[in-house]
């Protein structure tokens, strides 16, 4: 089927396309699930297909095929070019920024190949994790491990040809603690690109044991009174905030309204570069080339070489995320943010690893001059409006801080503030740096792409912390 990718690109060109590209992808995955000690059905997925984009008469189209049927492809490509031509009067003229032609092969190496690890070892990993935390105060213990390998071949009518291979692992767990009618819930994902060696690095046994103990202890945690106070956020929460309130609004397609009826638009306008959004200590980047990251890539899904993007620099809006289409509209080069979740989705502007750059404070230094505040280590519920302005984060593991000392657990402290309110309250950043994994949703039909997000510990001064209702 891979050969047909080349054929599709050529065939579209011969039939009047100004531009055409095809992505052949072969995606193999295994998912294992353990629910309260029971092994659920493992799921094996084998997908392959071709996704292609064509620009004909200035009109963009996308086609996806799973059958290696040359005649079907010919027929549908011709039909699509006809539709493009007939709809050109009410269609946008689509143009891509001029980029270098690339011929490249790249892959992520697995020290221990995931496919060489027996299925029973993968299942045993989950069974052991579950068994280690089994107790009556934790009535719900759900674990899921997914291993995916994506092989891609990208080709376009300009001469770019890129082969890549990316293996990755994701582990999701969902725990519920319960005593009497009190319950707490913790759900979390770990994800990384690479081989089975990742599992050791995650130190799962300790992490999950610690979290399960915390979750039971949390049932007796106190509720914080709504008040203004200082807040220390750990990398997990910093990460989600960078993703939601910095990365998403900086997506140029969103700024131009292309996601308007779905994931929404942005508080940022095309002319907002240089606007102050935060304090000088705030610098946020998005970088697809962080080693081991869950959304790692060297070339994006339009064949453009990946690089670090400085979205906020010293508190000022600095750069947007672009694909070739938005870059052309802004009169610049793409910064390689085009991603498609699979061959059956069009490449659109996406994040990869979005994080705040560290400062030079230790965690102790951040905490020591907080008279009364909270330290939020992990979170549960979160959401943000469709312009990426009003956001909410509900703490899961969170502690009260009194006179520079960490005290007992507090239950579900709530931060509900604006993007400007968030970034303009940051007065210090830690020198540490950590990341968490997520699956970012955008596009219609939905495209879930793997991402990392993170940062150091940071301190927010004088923000309202609410108690959960």
């Amino acid at each position, binding site marked *: 089927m891979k050969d047909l990718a080349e054929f599709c690109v050529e065939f579209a060109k011969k039939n009047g396309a100004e531009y055409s590209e095809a992505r052949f992808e072969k995606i193999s995955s295994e998912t294992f699930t353990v*629910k309260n000690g029971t092994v659920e059905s*493992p799921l094996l997925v084998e997908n392959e297909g071709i996704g292609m984009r064509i620009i004909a008469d200035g009109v963009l189209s996308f086609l996806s095929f799973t059958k290696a049927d040359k005649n079907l492809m010919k027929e549908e490509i011709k039909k699509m070019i006809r*539709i493009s031509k007939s709809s050109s009067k009410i269609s946008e003229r689509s143009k891509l920024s001029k980029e270098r032609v690339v011929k490249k092969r790249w892959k992520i190496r697995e020290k221990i190949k995931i496919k060489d690890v027996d299925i029973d070892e993968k299942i045993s990993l989950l069974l052991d994790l579950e068994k280690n935390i089994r107790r009556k105060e934790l009535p719900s213990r759900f674990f899921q491990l997914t291993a995916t390998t994506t092989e891609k071949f990208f080709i376009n009518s300009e001469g770019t040809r890129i082969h890549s291979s990316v293996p990755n692992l994701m582990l999701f767990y969902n725990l519920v603690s319960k005593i009497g009618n009190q319950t707490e819930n913790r759900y979390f994902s770990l994800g990384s690109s690479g081989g089975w060696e990742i599992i050791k690095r995650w130190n799962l046994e300790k992490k999950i044991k610690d979290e399960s103990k915390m979750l039971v202890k949390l049932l007796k945690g106190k509720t914080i009174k709504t008040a203004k106070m200082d807040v220390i956020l750990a990398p997990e929460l910093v990460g989600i905030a960078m993703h939601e309130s910095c990365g998403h609004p900086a997506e140029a397609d969103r700024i131009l309204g292309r996601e308007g009826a779905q994931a*929404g638009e942005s508080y940022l306008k095309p002319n907002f570069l240089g606007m102050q959004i935060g304090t000088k200590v705030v610098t946020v980047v998005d970088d697809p080339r962080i080693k081991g990251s869950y959304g790692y890539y060297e070339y994006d899904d339009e064949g453009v070489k990946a690089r670090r993007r400085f979205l906020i620099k010293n508190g000022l809006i600095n750069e947007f995320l672009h694909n070739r289409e938005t870059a052309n509209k802004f009169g610049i080069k793409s910064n390689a943010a085009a991603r498609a979740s699979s061959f059956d989705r069009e490449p659109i502007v996406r994040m990869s690893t979005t994080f705040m750059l560290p400062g030079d404070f230790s965690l102790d230094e951040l905490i020591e001059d907080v008279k009364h505040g909270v330290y939020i280590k992990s979170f549960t519920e979160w959401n943000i409006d469709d312009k990426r302005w009003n956001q909410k984060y509900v703490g899961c593991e969170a502690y009260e801080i009194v006179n520079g000392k960490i005290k007992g657990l507090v239950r579900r402290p709530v931060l*509900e503030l604006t993007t400007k*309110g968030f970034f303009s309250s940051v007065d210090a950043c830690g020198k540490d740096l950590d990341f968490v994994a997520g699956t970012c949703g955008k596009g219609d039909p939905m495209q879930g792409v793997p991402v990392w997000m993170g940062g150091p510990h940071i301190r927010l001064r004088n923000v309202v912390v609410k108690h959960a209702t």
Partner: protein
Amino acid sequence: MLPEDVVNLGLKLGANDVVCEIIDTTTRQVKFVNNVIVVNKLWKEEVMNIFLSWRKRVISSSIQSNVDVKKFLKKMLKAAKLSKPKEDYYGIAEGPFKYRQIEDSYDKKIEKLNGKEVELTREAIEASLKNADRCSGVLYTNCWKTELASSNSVKAKDKGTSISLSIRSFTEDSSGHSVSVSRKLSKFEPRKAGEESSRLAKESRKPKKGKAGRYDVIFHPLVMANLLDYMSYGFSAFEVDAGTSFLIDKLGKKVANKIVTIEDDGRMKNGFGARKFDEEGRPTQRTKIIENGILKNYLHNTSTAKKFKVKPTANAGIIYPQPWNLILKNGNSNLEEMISEVKDGLYVTNTWYTRFSNYRTGDFSTIPRDAIFRIKNGEIVGAVRGIRISDNMLRILKNIVEISKERKQIYWWEVNVPVLTGYVLVNNVNVTSSVK
């Protein structure tokens, strides 16, 4: 290869139970942004789903590839043998079954649209621009056929079509959203959706910052559909068994106000998710989940039903039972009456980003978007923005005091399970907002 060939091959290789379903789909999309089409899309896809068991060890697969099926079945069996027994696996539906046609589930006219989707999109855009400055959205058409066979004498076939439009209209400082969803072309109303979205945008101009507090809130069908979709994980026996459903231990108990009846109907006429059979091949049915406020049933496949000692509800997912079309039974009210009854409240026309802080309790928040109206003493007095509903699913169900007679089928980017619902008035809803 036909599904029954895959089943026979699986059995020959040593499997105890085998189910195979092959689904063939053609989907088209027209995406428009700021009044113009930005991309036309087409998907021609075939997927083969295989489930098999071997001595209580179960395994599933999804294949979109030209793989050698025999080799793949061998791989599945090898994996099953290396797996552990699923002690609560009790087999698959025992056929043969007879399947009845579902009314208004297939329309040749949709299959033959052949690029006319662009014209229908233009209709919606034109209708929107009567009141709004700009609009964005998507129009989808979908044609599918499916064949399923199992080792328990099941042989089933179905086919269907659908057409849907999701449109959001904008003015300088406001927006409105609407959808039109149908299995038949004659019931598809792109113009009406365009008009509704732009009317909502126009009427909600100059919104003021909303204030936190407890309000009586009218939910537009888009909002109620979103909440029913997001709460539907709690209806699945899988989540109840996992201990993550907010409806655990509540069978036979009051979980909603007595005017609330929620059903799942796999055979709903013109239902967007209607299909003749579930993923085990069992003929779909109508199941009462909540009746007059009392929790009556969870949604089951064969195994969960056996575990819970009830009859299957034809909602397989062989592993995860799922709803097909959620239906909130209509009441006698209408939007105007509801507005006139509200002294201090809100009318929320759309929402998104619904997330849970605790799945077990159903604590959640969601962010109203598009037109939000302030109601005082029975009248709309203006529009608001920047609010969030932070509440609990059970509390919402218990505080529903009115449901309209008129209902609408909802399915779009933020509502993944098709829902038929009316306008709903909910008392005492907790509304929060950003402080800084």
